[in-house]
C-alpha cells in the first residue's frame, strides 16, 4: 500500500456508520479486558513482573536461545535458524518437499504473515490452509489480517456469510454465526484429517525445557498437530522465556489483556515429535537482532502480541488495521515497522494519548517510542521537505520573544480579518471539520502589560 495512514484513515471514515461499528466492537473488547484485569488485585504487579522477565530475556537472549536449542534437540526436535524472511520461507519449503507433503494446515502465526510464507509457498505450487477461523475467512477473501488477535475484525457477519456461500456453498443470505461456524468446522475437519504437516506459531518458548507453547481459542493448533505426523513451529527469536514457572505470569496476562478471558481455551505445550513423526522448530531473526542491538528501541521486542494496544487505541479503532499498511497494525506495529525504509508516517499516526502504554502487559512505553521515532525520522529526513522547513522556521520564531509576539499578532489578525474563503483553503487541514479559534482583542501578554498592578517582572 503506497498511500499514507492519514489517507487510508480518511477512506475508512468515509463510511461513518461502519467506522462507528468498528470502534464500538473493539471498545467492548477493551471493556472486557478492564473487567478481567480488575479481577486480579495484583494486576499491576504482574505487569511489572512480566516486564522484568522480558528485560532479563532480552539482556541474555544468546544464552537462553542456545539453552533452548540444546533442550529442544535433546527432546528430539530439529531446530533451524533463519536470518530473514527469504531464508525462513526456503527452510519451510525444504521441509515440505522432504516430506513430500500436499496437505498442509497452519494455525495462527503473525510471523508467517510477516515473512509472506503463504504467498511464497503458493508461488512454489504449495497450498497452505489457515485453520484459525478468522484467518481462514481472510484467506478466502485474499485479504491481510487487520488485527493480530482478531484477524477478521474488520468484517461484518453478512460479509462472512457471503464469502462462505461462495467458497463453502452455505445458503445464500444466511449469516447466522452458529450456522457459519458449523460450516467452517466441517470444512476444516476434512483439512485436519488429511493433514500431513501442521504449522503453528509460537507464543512462548521455554529455554529450560525446550518446549514451545501455543495459545488458541479454537484448539486448531492441537487439531493440526495431533492429526499430522509432521509439526513445524515457527517463532521469532524473542519468544523465549527462561523457566517453566515464568509461563504462569504470561498466561495470566495474555488472554485477559487480549479478549478479557481468564485464559485462552487451549494452552498447548509441544515438546517431542510423535512416534514415527517429526518436529521442527524454526527460529527467525528477520530484523530482530538489529533491533536487539539498538538500546533505544529494544523494548518493542518484549511484545507478546496480545493486541491490547490495538483495542484501546482511539486511532486504530477509527482507522482500521489495514490503514497502517504494515503487517502488524496499531501502536505496536507503528514502533516495530522498519521505518527508515518504509512506513515513515506510522509514528505520526497517533495522538500520543498513552493509553497503549497503560494497557501493555509487558509495559512497553509505546507512545514514548513513537515520540522518539518521530525525532529520528525528522533528523534522517524521512519527513517531507516542507514539513522540515516549517519546523525550522517555527523553531526560530518560538525561541525569541519579539518573533513570537509577531507570530501571535499575525495569527490573531489573520483569523479576525481574512475572508473565510481564504482562511479555510484546503491547506488548512484544521478546517476539515473545525472552526479556527476566535481572535481576542489582545493577547494575554498585551493585557498583562496594561493591567497587572504589580511591576515585579523579572526582566
Amino acid at each position: 500500500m503506497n498511500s499514507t495512514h492519514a489517507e487510508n484513515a480518511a477512506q475508512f471514515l468515509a463510511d461513518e456508520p461502519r467506522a462507528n461499528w468498528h470502534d464500538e466492537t473493539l471498545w467492548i473488547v477493551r471493556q472486557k479486558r478492564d473487567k478481567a484485569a480488575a479481577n486480579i488485585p495484583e494486576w499491576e504487579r504482574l505487569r511489572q513482573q512480566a516486564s522484568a522477565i522480558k528485560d532479563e530475556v532480552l539482556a541474555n537472549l544468546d544464552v537462553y536461545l542456545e539453552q533452548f536449542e540444546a533442550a529442544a534437540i535433546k527432546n528430539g526436535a530439529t531446530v533451524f535458524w533463519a536470518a530473514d524472511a527469504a531464508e525462513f520461507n526456503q527452510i519451510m519449503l525444504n521441509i515440505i518437499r522432504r516430506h513430500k507433503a500436499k496437505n498442509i494446515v497452519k494455525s495462527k502465526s503473525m510471523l508467517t504473515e510477516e515473512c509472506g510464507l503463504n504467498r511464497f509457498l503458493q508461488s512454489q505450487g504449495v497450498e497452505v490452509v489457515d485453520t484459525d477461523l478468522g484467518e481462514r475467512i481472510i484467506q478466502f477473501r485474499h485479504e491481510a489480517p487487520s488485527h493480530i488477535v482478531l484477524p477478521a475484525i474488520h468484517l461484518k457477519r453478512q460479509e462472512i456469510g457471503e464469502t462462505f456461500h461462495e467458497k463453502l456453498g452455505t445458503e445464500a443470505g444466511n449469516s447466522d454465526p452458529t450456522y457459519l461456524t458449523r460450516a467452517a468446522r466441517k470444512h476444516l475437519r476434512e483439512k485436519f484429517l488429511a493433514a500431513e504437516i501442521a504449522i503453528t506459531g509460537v507464543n512462548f518458548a521455554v529455554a529450560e525445557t525446550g518446549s514451545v507453547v501455543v495459545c488458541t481459542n479454537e484448539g486448531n493448533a492441537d487439531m493440526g498437530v495431533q492429526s499430522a505426523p509432521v509439526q513445524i513451529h515457527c517463532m521469532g527469536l524473542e519468544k523465549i522465556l527462561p523457566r517453566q514457572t515464568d509461563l504462569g505470569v504470561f498466561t495470566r496476562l495474555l488472554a485477559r489483556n487480549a479478549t478479557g478471558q481468564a485464559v485462552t481455551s487451549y494452552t498447548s505445550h509441544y515438546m517431542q515429535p510423535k512416534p514415527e513423526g517429526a518436529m521442527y522448530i524454526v527460529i527467525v531473526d528477520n530484523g530482530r537482532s538489529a533491533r536487539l542491538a539498538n538500546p533505544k528501541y529494544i523494548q518493542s521486542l518484549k511484545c507478546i502480541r496480545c493486541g491490547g494496544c490495538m483495542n484501546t487505541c482511539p486511532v486504530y479503532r477509527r482507522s482500521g488495521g489495514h490503514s497502517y499498511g504494515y503487517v502488524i497494525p496499531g501502536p505496536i506495529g507503528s514502533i516495530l515497522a522498519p521505518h527508515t525504509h518504509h512506513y515513515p508516517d506510522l509514528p505520526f499516526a497517533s495522538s500520543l494519548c498513552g493509553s497503549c502504554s497503560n494497557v501493555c502487559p509487558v509495559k512497553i512505553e509505546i507512545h514514548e517510542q513513537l515520540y522518539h521515532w518521530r525525532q529520528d525520522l525528522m533528523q534522517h529526513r524521512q519527513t517531507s521537505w516542507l514539513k522540515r522547513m516549517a519546523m525550522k522556521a517555527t523553531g526560530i520564531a518560538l525561541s525569541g520573544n519579539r518573533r513570537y509576539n509577531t507570530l501571535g499578532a499575525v495569527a490573531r489578525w489573520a483569523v479576525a480579518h481574512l475572508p473565510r474563503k481564504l482562511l479555510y483553503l484546503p491547506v488548512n487541514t484544521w478546517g476539515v471539520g473545525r472552526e479556527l479559534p476566535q481572535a481576542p482583542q489582545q493577547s494575554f501578554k498585551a493585557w498583562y502589560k496594561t493591567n497587572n498592578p504589580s511591576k515585579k517582572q523579572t526582566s
Partner: protein
Amino acid sequence: MKQYRIGLFIPCYIDMFYPQVGIATLELLQKLGQEVVYPDKQTCCGQPLANSGAEKEAIATYKHFVAQFRGFDYIVTPSGSCAYHVRHHFDILEQTDDVRQVRENTFELCEFLTDILQVEDLKIKFPHRVGLHQSCHGLRGLKLASASELIEQRYSKLRRLLEKAEGIELIELDRPDECCGFGGTFSIFEPDVSVKMGRDRIADHERHHAEYITSYDMSCLMHMEGIIRRQGKAIKVIHVAEILNRNSL
C-alpha cells in the same frame, strides 16, 4: 497557606487566543495569596515542534524557557500538556541546576492547588452540569487522575477541586478518559481521525446532558470548540481555571 514566588507560564496558544484563561489563572493564584510573576519575554515550551519530530529545532526554545523561568519557587501553568512537556521532555538539555529546578518545579494548575497549596474548598458556585475532559498528558503523564486502563485506586485532582462547588453536577461519561484527538500537530496531519475522535468525545458529553466540558488543557478544548462551532452545537467549553476563579474567597 504558604506563600510562594510563582512564575506564571501561559502557553503560547492561550496567550494568543484564550487570554481569559491566563487572566483567570493569575487572579486565582493572587487571591490565594501567592506572589505571581509573569516573565513577559516567555514564548512557548517547544512542544509543537518536538511532537512533530523536531526536538532538535526546539532546543533554542527550551533554553529560552529555562532562562525565563529559573529561580522561581514554582512555575505554574494552566496546561497539563505543557507542564508534562517541560518536566518530561526537557531531558535532552544539559541538566544544569537551572534546568533541573525548572523541570522539577513546573506544575499544572490543578495539581499545584491540590498538592502544593493543599486547597480544600475554593468556595465556588457553578450551578451547571459539567463533564470532565481528563486530557491525556495530564492524566497519564502527570497522573492528575487515575487512568481507566490501570488497576488502581480511583482519584481525580480535577474532580476533587470541582466537586465541592455549589450547585455543580459532574456527569459520568461512557468512556471516562478517551482521547479527544487533538494531539498537537496530529490534529493537522491526521485531520479526519482527529475530528472524528473529537466528535465522538463531544457526543459522549452530550449524551449525558453536559452544559459544559471542562479540562485543565485548553488545547483539547480549542479542538472540541472548533467542532462544536462548526456543527452549531449548544454545548460549551470552559477551562477549569475559569470555573475555579469564580470563587468567593
